[in-house]
């Protein structure tokens, strides 16, 4: 079984060479810049139409209702890091279909096409207002940011990269949880990533976890909840089980504002709820306070 999969993967290598080139080019340029002028975009919350460029300039926050639109990994890098400082690491992972689930490959292909990424997690070296960090971003547009074998491995790799370089780690979480199609392998990624965070803590390195909409399931129940400081983006849905599952289980309606970032702050589960406009500033402040004012 393994033999055949590896063979298949070997054939994929050829296409990957070409893909990598395109991929790197995409990473380099800011996606924010190539929104055509005059294109309208609708806020998913208040349904008002805005010129796309305005929303992009507003860091994908609806100017009317302050709704934080979900951000793609590339955009998140662009809006968080200093221009041109990002160097992507951990390329070349190939997601396989270990349990031979029907339709998994097609779903992956579709997500690859819409996001231009190979997997739901992207990490690398970057600088936030001059402070060097290892940054990792989960992309909720790629199969709901779900954690399969490759995402788990890349998360651990980013932690190990931070360990080797002795840099703070900043992670943006947006995930529906474990990837169902990879079954038990996905579940084991929870243990794997949490253990890696423990290693990081043992070395006295800073781990900032930023929870964005949505953070649920296996990801929230592993490395996402283990940051030294946990920030949450305004209005984000954060929790272990999704609201639909809870409703089904307890057969009652849920309280107003349940499982939002504000609710979690009230319950003492996150350190701070931050507006997207203030996120970079807050991160910079935290990094400065943990670095003894040292910039590179």
């Amino acid at each position, binding site marked *: 079984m393994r033999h055949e*999969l*590896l063979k298949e*993967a070997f054939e*994929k*290598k050829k296409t*990957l*060479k070409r893909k*990598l*080139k395109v991929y*790197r080019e995409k990473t380099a340029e800011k996606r924010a810049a190539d929104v055509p002028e005059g294109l309208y975009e609708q806020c998913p919350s208040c349904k008002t139409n805005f010129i796309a460029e305005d929303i992009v300039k507003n860091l994908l926050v609806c100017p009317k209702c302050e709704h934080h639109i979900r951000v793609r990994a590339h955009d998140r890098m662009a809006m968080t890091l200093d221009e041109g400082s990002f160097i*992507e690491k951990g*390329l*070349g*992972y*190939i997601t*396989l279909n*270990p*349990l031979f*689930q029907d339709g998994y490959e097609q779903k992956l292909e579709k997500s690859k096409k819409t996001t231009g990424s190979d997997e739901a997690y992207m990490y690398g070296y970057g600088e936030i207002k001059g402070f060097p960090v290892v940054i990792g971003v989960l992309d909720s547009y790629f199969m709901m940011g779900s954690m*399969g*074998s*490759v995402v788990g*491995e890349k998360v*651990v790799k980013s932690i190990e990269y931070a360990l080797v370089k002795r840099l703070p780690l900043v992670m943006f979480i947006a995930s529906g949880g474990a990837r*169902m*199609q*990879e*079954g*038990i*392998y996905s*579940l*084991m990624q*929870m*243990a*794997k990533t*949490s*253990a890696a*965070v*423990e*290693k990081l803590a*043992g070395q006295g390195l800073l781990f900032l976890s930023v929870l964005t909409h949505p953070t649920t399931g296996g990801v*929230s*129940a*592993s*490395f*996402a*909840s*283990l940051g030294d400081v946990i920030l949450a983006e305004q209005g984000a849905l954060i*929790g*272990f*089980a999704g609201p639909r599952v*809870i409703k089904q*289980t*307890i057969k009652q309606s*849920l309280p107003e504002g*349940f*499982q939002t970032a504000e609710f979690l702050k009230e*319950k*003492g*589960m996150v350190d701070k709820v931050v507006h997207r406009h203030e996120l970079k500033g807050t991160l910079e402040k935290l990094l400065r306070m943990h670095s003894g004012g040292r910039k590179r």
Partner: protein
Amino acid sequence: MNILDKEKKLEALEAELERLDDEEAIQDIKIRIEDYKRKAMRDLSAWDRVLLARHKERPTAREVIDNVFNDFLELHGDRLYADDASIVGGIGEIEHQVVTVIGEQKGKTTEENIATNFGMPHPEGYRKALRLMRQANKFNRPIVTLIDTPGAFPGVGAESRGQSNAIAENLKSMSRFGVPIIPIVIGEGGSGGALAIGVGNQVYMLENSIYSILSPEGYASILWKDSSLAEEAAEAMKLTSYDLKELGIIDGIIAEPVGGAHRDKRSVYKAIKSMLVQSLAYLSQQSPFELRTSRYSKYRNMGFFQRFNYEHLKGVTT
């Protein structure tokens, strides 16, 4: 015909055996029973094993604890909020070795099930488990955990008190302890709720238990939008002990009698005990450092993927 129907048929045969007094007829029916067991009750499908894992007569964690460990002393509470009855924990003895035992407890009657919340722990349950594991680590006691839960409880209270945080802290801390940790899945191993006490040096499963990322019903309704396809989902999910052994997730399978653990509980307890003694003897030889690092690398290497070999990428650097 699933295993429960087969079981009914077998029970009918056994009831007949009780009724008869003619020597020849007894012999005849005994042969028929054995025949039936051999022909129909082996080679179970994945769905059969799901049904057996959820069987209402299946030994619960408390039964296993009472019959495998001597002098079990239950310890209560997480020191933060409450005592969760769906997690039972304490100290016990096995072959003159003191161990900490933690198990997820399901009930048999309705009242028991309400008290134990159908085996679905709240955050305070996981925090109690963590407290006991820390204690075990302090006094250098091996930890044995018994997994039997449909999953961590999804509810308003659980979310408010930080279900994900509790599970994450357990996963993180369990990678650090310098004592042997031996999780055994005795029934349902449901998702993060099972893994939260299931990170160990050697992980075992009872033959007819299951371990999966979510229930087959949930899987079918999420991926196929039809929860009635649970039977097919069980087959596709690779959740039986044999599948997981093949995938390298667990280290061993503890054999069950034909027809499931509830049909001969004593043999199951005996099998669990002998396996535990063996495993403890092996792991006790390792130093805390070895236990920690071997556990870490065990989970570090879990996953199934392919990484592109950069040798083939001449001219493109990363």
